[in-house]
């Protein structure tokens, strides 16, 4: 497909007819790509039953709020990690232990829009320690533990709205960042929306990320009221700098579609964060009252705690000269990507007709030469000509994101023309292009944003599915496509559906984390307040209207499993400990009429669920995870009596518990 031929017409159509709306473009004929798949594609992606994939790929679930983990090259879904959304499947945000993870200054928020997975790095290369991901709507950053594939920490970003430019990492993961997509009054206040230009500001947040359990907002930088969209850290020579795209430099507050698309150039903000650190250390940042939650999950107690923080350090660039510069960049730039050498800063100008590439060495010279056009809110605007290294001409329509293969080539996604364009760094010539199906957003090469990409595969993450799979009514799963980029030409290998919106992804070689996976939690190390380590330790206790039931789950029973003395008006907490110490032996717990979810309890773990019975009767509970041959027998009953009933509070004692208790008594007697 020679795009350049029809480019002028398409550009005209874009202006005249609004070709930006994908609905207006004619859908390509079904399976037009099948002929484009090379002969050995099936072999390249076939991972035989029982064999492992080569890469773990972490795809954001977008508006599902979670992360989906796929194996590459097979495209098999191997895990969904609960992050920002309540998940009744594994009781994330329903179990008492996990509820604090979703706490924010706005209260308990059961959902978010998860956009950018980001692997932690050491020396600019993914290291497999953690995975970070942002919540877009109520700005948050989560840290995922890659030995358990669970969310271990979530920090909220105050003075921010729309945490889209997040959580991109510095080469050492000292910081991950977050920037406001929506500028808002800072601190937020009741002002007329039309006073946008006077009252609305953006912030760029630097969050310390290399101390597990201690994520902290090191400082925020107060910026002019633009929309801050994406970011990437410098590396190598540009280490110590961070680059953020911005659009709406028009500072429109209505109909941004038109009003924020007027300026030929918006800006990339170049932030010297080492300079910011120095200014903060020198006391130039103001202590800014701000409420935000910091939630940490403790693996030993299997319990999360939420702490409400009260202030941040806010740095105004006017108080810290040299901390921020604006690089004029055409037009409404979206992605900003730094090549593996750290010299080139590639912008994806959504509405631009070129892909502009800035040079870090020219940027430094321009700063030294003071090649400034003007200043905005104390931030110098550099001359475009003084910083631009080159432009990729006629790349296609709607360039968004660029990743790199480590062999001198860049790959840019084109949303409107629905393709990936491969071009050469330095000469800016286009060497290949392939269609995607359809309307690609991000693309991902494992390590493709780092110093050392594993340049074998490229994954296209698409917004439109149309005819790719059997139709499923109006709503379709979105799609991802895997391409082989090991040769000169990109080759389509595989098409697979994804959960939510596969907004962005990161991947690393499986060998880096495969053998570090935890198989079960140690029961001996379980410090949960309500842990039940043996059948004899289970029971039922009352404290006013609160009833706590402690029980164990093991193949194939709960103990105790007959409970009486609960009354209407009580709030009951079931605390279930899975006392198995065996890989993949998971138990579940569900009780009739629960307004909460089930529990899924991993071996060695304790989980608690709240239950408020409304009427007298007998209520069964049972195991929901098909654990064993006698799974259907794994059940019990709770008797609920009317308020004020004389039915005694009792829990039955299993034969095993009896045996355990008599053994304990005997050893006690021997001691005496």
């Amino acid at each position, binding site marked *: 497909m020679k795009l350049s031929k029809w480019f002028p017409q398409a550009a005209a159509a874009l202006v005249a007819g609004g070709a930006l709306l994908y609905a207006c473009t004619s859908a390509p004929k079904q399976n037009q790509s099948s002929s484009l798949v090379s002969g050995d594609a099936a072999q390249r992606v076939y991972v035989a039953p029982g064999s492992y994939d080569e890469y773990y790929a972490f795809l954001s679930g977008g508006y599902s709020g979670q992360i989906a983990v796929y194996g590459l090259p097979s495209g098999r879904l191997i895990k969904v990690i609960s992050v920002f959304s309540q998940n009744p499947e594994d009781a994330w945000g329903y179990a008492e232990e996990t509820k604090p993870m979703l706490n924010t200054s706005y209260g308990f928020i059961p959902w978010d829009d998860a956009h950018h997975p980001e692997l932690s790095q050491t020396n600019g290369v993914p290291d497999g320690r953690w995975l970070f991901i942002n919540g877009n709507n109520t700005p948050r950053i989560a840290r995922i533990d890659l030995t358990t594939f669970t969310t271990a920490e979530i920090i909220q970003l105050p003075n921010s709205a729309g945490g889209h430019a997040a959580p991109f990492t510095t080469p050492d993961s000292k910081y991950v960042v977050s920037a406001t997509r929506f500028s808002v009054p800072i601190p937020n206040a009741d002002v007329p929306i039309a006073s946008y230009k006077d009252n609305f500001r953006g912030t760029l947040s630097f969050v310390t990320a290399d101390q597990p359990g201690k994520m902290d907002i090191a400082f925020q930088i107060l910026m002019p009221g633009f929309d801050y969209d994406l970011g990437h850290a410098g590396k190598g020579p540009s280490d110590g700098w961070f680059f953020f795209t911005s659009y709406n430099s028009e500072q429109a507050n209505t109909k941004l579609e038109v009003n924020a698309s007027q300026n030929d150039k918006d800006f990339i903000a170049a932030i010297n964060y080492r300079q910011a650190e120095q200014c903060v250390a020198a006391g130039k940042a103001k202590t800014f009252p701000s409420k935000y939650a910091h939630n940490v999950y403790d693996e030993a107690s299997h319990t999360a705690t939420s702490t409400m923080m009260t202030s941040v350090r806010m740095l105004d660039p006017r108080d810290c000269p040299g901390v921020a510069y604006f690089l004029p960049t055409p037009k409404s730039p979206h992605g900003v990507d730094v090549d593996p050498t750290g010299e080139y800063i590639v912008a994806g100008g959504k509405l631009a007709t070129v892909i502009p590439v800035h040079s870090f060495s020219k940027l430094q010279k321009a700063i030294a030469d003071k090649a400034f056009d003007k200043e905005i809110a104390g931030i110098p605007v550099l001359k475009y000509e003084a910083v631009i290294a080159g432009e990729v001409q006629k790349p296609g329509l709607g360039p968004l994101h660029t990743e790199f293969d480590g062999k001198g080539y860049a790959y840019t996604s084109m949303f409107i023309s629905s393709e990936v364009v491969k071009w050469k760094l330095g000469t800016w010539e286009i060497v290949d292009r392939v269609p995607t199906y359809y309307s690609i957003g991000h693309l991902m090469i494992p390590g493709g944003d780092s110093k050392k990409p594993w340049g074998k595969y490229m994954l296209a993450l698409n917004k439109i599915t149309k005819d790719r799979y059997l139709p499923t009514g109006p709503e379709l799963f979105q799609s991802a496509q895997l391409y082989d980029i090991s040769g000169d030409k990109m080759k389509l290998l595989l098409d697979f559906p994804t959960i939510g919106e596969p907004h962005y992804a990161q991947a690393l070689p499986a060998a880096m984390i495969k053998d570090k996976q935890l198989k079960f939690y140690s029961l001996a190390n379980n410090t949960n307040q309500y842990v039940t380590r043996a059948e004899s330790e289970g029971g039922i206790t009352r404290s006013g209207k609160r009833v706590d039931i402690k029980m164990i789950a*093991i*193949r194939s029973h709960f103990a105790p499993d007959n409970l009486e003395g609960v009354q209407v008006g009580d709030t009951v907490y079931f605390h279930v400990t899975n006392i*198995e*110490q*065996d*890989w993949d032996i998971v138990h579940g717990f569900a009780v009739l009429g629960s307004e909460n979810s089930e529990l899924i309890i991993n071996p060695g773990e304790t989980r608690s669920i709240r239950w408020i019975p409304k009427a007298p009767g007998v209520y069964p509970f049972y195991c929901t995870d098909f654990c064993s*041959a*006698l799974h259907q027998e794994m059940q019990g009953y709770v008797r609920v009596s009317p308020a004020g009933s004389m039915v005694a509070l009792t829990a039955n004692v299993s034969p095993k518990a009896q045996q355990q208790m008599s053994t304990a008594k005997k050893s006690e007697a021997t001691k005496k």
Partner: protein
Amino acid sequence: MPISNHFRILAAVAALSLLTLYALPLWSIDLLAPQYPEGLGLVIKANTIQGKGANDLATINELNHYIGMKEIDPDAVPELRVMPWAIAVLAVLGLGAAAIGRPAALIAWLGVFAVAGAAGMVQFWRWGYDYGHHLAPDAIIKVPGMAYQPPLLGTKQMLNFTATSWPAVGGYVAGAAFLAFALAIWLGVREARTHARA
């Protein structure tokens, strides 16, 4: 007439090598099932029974409750109290026999070792028989005619598990000690006869 010194030393070393059985596993039982492709395993040592994985013994006991098998509790197996003493006695007697050096004493020791070994195997078999046959009357899974005695040597299918039982390093050491001791006697006696003829 005693055999020559170097064969007595060989016999003494063979007897002393039995002391390694305090550390080395004597016997190994491996269990494979569709649910346990990675396998579960037990090793029998002179004074205890251990899982091969950290939680294998607990897991095996947990699984065994389905068929009504007693829990394997090393503290409740009397043979494991006796075996360390038997090994010590055997080693001391072996040293004594080597010191005496007379074929009769040496052969007598071999006889004691063989009897002790056979008794050990018989006890092991009986122990396995007891576990495999004396099942709880309210066992969850009852298969008519099915017993769960692990094989003494070799492989046996028991429901979904394939059990394989073989000597472990210690078992081979004990066997090698027996053979080395016998070899010392045989060579020693042959040498003595050759000398006598000459």
